[in-house]
């Protein structure tokens, strides 16, 4: 529990930096930091594979992609006063709604102390996840491969140079 509070104290400021900093590159780097913290939380929850996937996929691949996008679009740091007030209001509204939902969920599930239930043998291990993936979730697993193929084909069709036949 102590670990959780320490992590929370570090993660939340990092997450706030992501959305509040005016320079998009700093935001992206703060995002990497936040994702690492979340990965540590996964380790604390015995979900080692998820923790590694979090680092490899999110902190590694996706943030690099975001950085590429920032560099290629050469986004300038935001000037003070930029951004429309209506959008800002919508953002605050959505945030308030999510906060409300968090409270509601806490009210619906008042006591779910995760530590009290003993975890099944090998919980969160690669072997267990692989077993679920190839038994219970066999169809979604196979469908995902088709989905990725379709996405690649679609991206190639869209990105092909605009030449007439």
């Amino acid at each position, binding site marked *: 529990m102590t670990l959780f509070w320490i992590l929370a104290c570090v993660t939340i400021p990092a997450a706030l930096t992501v959305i509040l900093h005016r320079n998009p590159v700093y935001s992206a780097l703060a995002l990497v930091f936040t994702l690492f913290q979340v990965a540590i939380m996964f380790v604390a929850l015995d979900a080692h594979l998820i923790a590694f996937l979090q680092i490899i996929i999110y902190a590694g691949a996706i943030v690099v992609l975001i950085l590429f996008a920032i560099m290629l679009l050469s986004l300038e740091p935001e000037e003070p006063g930029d951004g429309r007030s209506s959008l800002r209001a919508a953002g605050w509204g959505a945030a308030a709604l999510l906060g409300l*939902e968090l409270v*509601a*969920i806490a009210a*619906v*599930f008042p006591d779910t102390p995760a530590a009290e239930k003993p975890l099944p043998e090998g919980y969160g291990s690669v072997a267990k996840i692989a*077993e679920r993936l*190839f*038994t*219970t*979730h*066999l*169809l*979604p697993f*196979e*469908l*995902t491969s*088709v*989905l990725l*193929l*379709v*996405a690649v*084909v*679609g991206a190639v*069709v*869209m990105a*092909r140079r*605009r030449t*007439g*036949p």
Partner: protein
Amino acid sequence: MIEIPFGAAEAWAIAPFTVIALFAMGILLYETFRTDDHGPELTFWFSILGLAGAAIASLLAWDNGSVAFGGTFATDGVAVFTNLICILAAGLSLMMGVHYMELIRVRAREFQPLVLFAVSGMFIMGGARDLIVLFLGIEVMSIPAYVLAGIHRQDHASGEAALKYFLLGAFATSFLLYGIALVYGATGTTTYAGISMALSTAPHLALLGGIALLIVALGFKVGVVPFHFWAPDVYQGAPTAVTALMAVGIKAAAVVGTARLFLSGFAGMHVEWSIVLWWISVATMTLGNVVAIVQSNVKRMLAYSSVAHAGYLIAAIASGTPRGGGAILFYLLAYAFMNLGAFAVVIAVGAKDEPNEKMSDFAGLATRRPLLSGAMALFLLSLMGIPPLVGFVGKLYIIEALIAAGQVGLGVIVILNSVVSGYYYLRVIIEMFMKDATREIPALDPRPYLMVCVAIALAGTIFFGIFPDLALEAARDSFAALR
């Protein structure tokens, strides 16, 4: 060592999907390695072969009520019926596209495989009995659809349609996933069978939130008010052959996916969700019909008409009975024939670099193309619901199912809306038969594929109008056996 649960039942269950996906990949590979550049016919017939193979696989796999993959995927009558409707929609769209795509300078090698991939996603949606499978089916169907909407690169409107569809589609997907997460949190499972058993003990608030978000996401895919804003722009901007696929195939798969989820997974909460669907249905058909009246572009008018028809379909889901489900399947079949026919005629009126989609372009069409105008008139009358055409029978069964379920008010609203829709459908007919052409329209070259497409749609519109029992019995039985 674990045993992978993949037996004969599983192989048969996804056989239609496998066949169509393999054919799509086959066309992609063939197009990659061939050196000469001949027309679109060869790959078109190859696609038709794939669709026919998938239809046969669906019929062979038809085993009422049987489920595979641990109950997450069904090969029951509902799935097979949906598969056949989607195959019909894709086949006729491809047929419309053979010459049309050349006319607008889109390569067949890009158009045809994407259509087949979209159909493979529709198959998954028709049989999904698990929220994760439903999600993947929606995505496999939608991603090719986003690309297809923007496949006409020279056209600004096509690109705009693709971007709009993609952004709003991604938004809807996030709603879908959030809804799935809430339902999973409340019930502890994503399978429909598990959800329906856990409904009574699940925390009510989380469940209601999940259902509300799922209605938003699926409502977007079907194109119902108030999540319809993308529909007119996307339907108008996309190439017409793609619009036909979206308005019929994607709508059919999304409606059946929604119907199966609500009539089996959430059946125990019918009282709660039927009120929401009641209002959505009334708003959708009324707004679709009223706004369609003021359109001056036939393609856009058909887009709003398609929004209105989504309203009739949602009304049948709101009835919450297997009878309503059967009415949905039959209506989708009817809608496929008459709507695909109408879009095919819109393509036939257009010429190179001249879409001719305005209402005034149809003026005096009857003197130049009497047969085509006659076919269009029959499609529009069927969409309106005039006997003995198939649209009338379809609406009749929806109204009958609503009355049987005690929703007389909704049935009356469906009838009133059909009367309103008569105004704009008849307007096109009046333009074609009673007005003189306002301007010189270039003579149209004969396009055999397109004419065959119109003929097939016309045959279906008339045949199933006079002999509806053939399809109706199958539609009813399939939903009665739904578990």
